[in-house]
């Protein structure tokens, strides 16, 4: 009965929300169901015949969860996945309930859920996952999380609930230091000897997470990701079970690289772009390998995956090409700037900055982004939009970008129309929104028929 009521509630509410285009509509109904039946999530876990997988970390949750889901579905498994990116326990519950039948029952093999960093422990306690994967940890939304070490400690607590394996980014010293008390098998992924240097961004961790001594980096990819060693206590990058090397960024926004999987080298070409996606690819591959899925068929599916919504999404207005690059925290933004700079075509910018709860209400982080490196780029305009457009324009002014190139239009729709009217046919418009700004611009573009609603694009 409980399941029936909860399922009816969630389905009817979600349908209404989507009908009126108020959003993907799983979080609010899920929240109601959670309030009425607090133990429901934990009870529902029994219905997953093959168990549950949780994916957490600062960047790459959505894409990794999506990649893993693609592979599992290609294997014929039934998968429930919170693809809308609604990643608090309410979003996970909402997603499960919406996939139930009219009696409130469902049959699924796997649950693949991305989960908000600060919620990981709560979700893991309720869902008792087989595997937990941690992508990376960077400063993000410090107004919600307090500080990075606090987030790391919450995730560390959650790892005790992983029954089978813990998959960790070996290049991230804060992540690789987690789970030391856990008995589950540990699997590390990472990138070996970068043959390129990336845009500089603020470094979140210079010191050993175990003993506070300064870390020595033999190589550093970006932020605090790299090949590190503590000279005092011996903590160092672990041996990588799954790794990538020889990464090439191709002009058609694809990636080529080699993967080393337990000694076997496999060549990969992927329509995903940007260094983040190499990590996402590796984390998905590590996860599927841990689930005993054949690596060859995994790589086949992964090599066909297209980006998740708002992550390097391309569309055209008449003959003008626009690219959306979600940019919601300092390291993510800095890497996006690096991606933009690799594009040799002429380009202009629409940067949208909101300060809603889901973004983090503190916009200070934009000063940690390396906008200074945009100075050398040849572009005609950067329109700043969103609730905090003025802050973004001010940041760009202090990055040395001439004020004559800057324009402030708070309204997202008007800003987009203005940007499109200004670009030439041979130029690209890069749209760099933070989280709610991305939902806002995508919502507008979907209404205009330029993009699909994200809950349909699955």
């Amino acid at each position, binding site marked *: 009965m409980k399941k029936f009521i909860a399922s009816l509630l969630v389905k009817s509410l979600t349908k209404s929300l989507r009908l009126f285009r108020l959003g993907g509509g799983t979080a609010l109904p899920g929240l109601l169901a959670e309030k009425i039946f607090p133990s429901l999530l934990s009870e529902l876990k029994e219905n997953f015949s093959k168990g549950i997988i949780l994916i957490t970390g600062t960047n790459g949750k959505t894409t990794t969860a999506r990649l893993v889901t693609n592979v599992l579905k290609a294997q014929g498994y039934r998968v429930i996945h919170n693809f809308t990116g609604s990643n608090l326990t309410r979003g996970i519950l909402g997603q499960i309930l919406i996939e139930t039948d009219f009696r409130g029952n469902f049959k699924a093999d796997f649950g693949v859920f991305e989960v908000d960093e*600060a919620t990981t422990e709560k979700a893991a306690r309720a869902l008792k996952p087989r595997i937990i994967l941690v992508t990376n940890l960077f*400063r993000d939304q*410090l*107004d*919600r*999380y*307090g*500080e*990075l*070490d606090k987030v790391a400690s919450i995730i560390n607590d959650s790892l005790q609930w992983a029954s089978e394996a813990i998959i960790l980014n070996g290049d991230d010293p804060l992540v690789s230091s987690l789970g030391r008390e856990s008995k589950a098998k540990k699997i590390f992924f990472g990138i070996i000897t970068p043959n390129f240097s990336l845009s500089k961004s*603020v*470094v979140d961790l*210079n*010191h050993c997470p175990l003993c*506070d001594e*300064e870390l020595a980096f033999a190589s550093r990819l970006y932020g605090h990701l790299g090949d590190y060693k503590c000279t005092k206590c011996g903590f160092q990058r672990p041996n990588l079970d799954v790794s990538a090397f020889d990464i090439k960024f191709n002009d058609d926004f694809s990636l080529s690289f080699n993967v080393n999987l337990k000694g076997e080298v496999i060549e990969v070409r992927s329509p995903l772009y940007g260094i983040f996606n190499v990590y996402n690819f590796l984390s998905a591959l590590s996860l599927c390998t841990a689930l005993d899925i054949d690596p060859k068929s995994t790589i086949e599916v992964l090599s066909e995956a297209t980006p998740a919504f708002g992550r390097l999404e391309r569309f055209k207005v008449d003959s003008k090409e626009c690219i959306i690059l979600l940019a919601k925290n300092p390291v993510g933004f800095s890497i996006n700037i690096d991606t933009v700079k690799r594009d040799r075509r002429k380009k202009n910018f629409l940067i949208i900055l909101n*300060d*809603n*709860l889901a973004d983090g*209400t*503190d*916009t*200070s*982080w*934009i*000063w*940690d982004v390396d906008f200074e490196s945009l100075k050398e780029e040849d572009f005609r305009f950067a329109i700043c939009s969103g*609730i*905090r*457009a*003025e*802050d973004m*324009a*001010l*940041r760009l*002014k*202090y*990055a*040395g970008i001439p*004020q004559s190139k*800057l324009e*402030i239009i708070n309204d997202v729709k008007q800003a987009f129309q203005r940007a499109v009217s200004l670009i030439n046919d041979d130029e690209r418009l890069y749209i760099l929104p933070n989280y709610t700004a991305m939902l806002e611009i995508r919502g507008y573009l979907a209404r205009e028929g330029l993009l699909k609603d994200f809950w349909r694009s699955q």
Partner: protein
Amino acid sequence: MRIEIFYLYPDLMSLYGDVGNIITILKRCEWRNIKCEIYEVKVGERADFRRADLLFMGGGQDRGQRIVGNDLQSYKEEIKELVEEGLPGLLICGGYQLFGKYFKTKDGIYIPGIDVLDVWTIGGDRRMIGNVIVASTLFGKLVGFENHSGRTFLGEKVEPLGKVVKGYGNNGKDMLEGAIYKNLIGTYLHGPFLPKNPQVADWLIAKALSYRYKEEISLEPLDDTLEHLAHNSQERRAYTAKTVHI
């Protein structure tokens, strides 16, 4: 003309966009043809603070503050003496706390500061987070963002930076924010405090020049239209934005 900025422990004490303040001072000097050099003070080296014309220190995580705290003690007397002579500086959040007398954590652990500012801090359970508006006699209206669990109290030797109009300020009780002693400012308004309050940036630059050249120096005004737009946008959000509590 030139000034030398001592940026204390940038790798550990630059939590919330604090580097924005350094960028602001650099740019506002550059636009006026004032040469600006930055010396980064790192843990374990011997810095000569007598060369400094301006101090800056941001906020850090507990880990950062722990590592930095001991190192800073070794400069205690030197910094104290120079600040008495008029060395200007800006200290934010953790930097503000460490320049005070002590920090007592909520578990009762006593961490000594360097006692340059007559302030002390007591750890609290609830973090004070959100946009802040401050009314300052010296600077007029100031805006910023705060995120701290420490409650700071002022002794007799310091003046508050201003009165809290919106937000929590030093401790959420006496409605005061920050502290000023001679030419040294401590505040909880973290991250890009100076770009949105350019009058404070210019005050610091002028004080640094006057300190270095031992004469009163005033600055050419700049076009601060964009600075004021961002200032006003944050002021509006101080009244309308929702805040979280953790």
